[in-house]
């Protein structure tokens, strides 16, 4: 009977603890912005901004929306390096950028500093603005 009476309290405590842990993880990802994170070896020293696109085979929205958005971006944006990261193939890289959901896109400027992190679908316009911002930050 006591367990029945305490059921809401116990449940809220369990879920609350899980929510706090998730918030802490999200805050950790936001703290990446402005920091230098080691790029994959094939992109180290790139002169233009780099766009890391974290995706996976089972990520439907990646294939139906994010990839076409990146194709539109590639058609009319100034030069940038694009690296598609399959999180199942390169889990260490996904951990380095604290990727928790797909798609995630990360803009890294030419100095190797993280300029922006997008969790979930990011539009062509948003990515173009973030890449422009990354270029301006290096030029300034």
């Amino acid at each position: 009977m006591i367990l029945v009476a305490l059921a809401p309290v116990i449940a809220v405590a369990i879920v609350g603890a899980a929510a706090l842990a998730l918030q802490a993880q999200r805050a950790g990802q936001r703290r990446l912005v402005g920091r230098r994170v080691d790029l994959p070896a094939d992109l180290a020293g790139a002169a233009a901004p780099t766009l890391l696109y974290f995706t996976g085979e089972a990520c439907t929205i990646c294939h139906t929306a994010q990839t076409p958005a990146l194709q539109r971006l590639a058609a009319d944006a100034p030069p940038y390096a694009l690296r598609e990261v399959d999180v199942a193939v390169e889990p260490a890289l996904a951990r380095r950028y604290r990727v928790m959901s797909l798609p995630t896109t990360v803009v890294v400027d030419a100095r190797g500093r993280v300029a922006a992190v997008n969790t979930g679908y990011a539009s062509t316009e948003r990515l173009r603005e973030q890449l422009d911002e990354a270029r301006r930050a290096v030029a300034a």
Partner: protein
Amino acid sequence: MKAIPFDRSVLKVNQTILMTCIAGAYFAGVFWRPAVAALPALALMMLAGAASPRTNLPRLLYARVLKPRHLVRPRVVEEDPAPHRFAQLVGGVFLAAASVAALLGAVGIAWILGWIVAALAFLNFAFDICVGCIMYAQLVRIGLFPLRRRPETT
């Protein structure tokens, strides 16, 4: 390829049903013990909804009653519905486990599991934190999900 238009209002309706029914049944259960039968009913609703959009009762309620009467406004976004369906499946499994616990006489455990689902629904409703969706992403990340790419159409 086209983006998937996904109406988030369906999720909000689902979460509202879960929160009100679980809380209502819990407090009703103080006076009337058979109210615990709400748990298997909700489990069935969640599992049926995860199985197919055609058997998703909150979706039908939204599409046929709430939306046409402008009681709930559409909130269409470009989003993958798969993580939300997975979250619904997880909620259904929790409620099914709660039903089994109630059947075995462990009513306290049943209500803890039920309230966990209600609390998760509230978290998603109020703060857009979908714990099931995050679990889905982690399962994709470690490769536990079937690696089946949708055929690309031109």
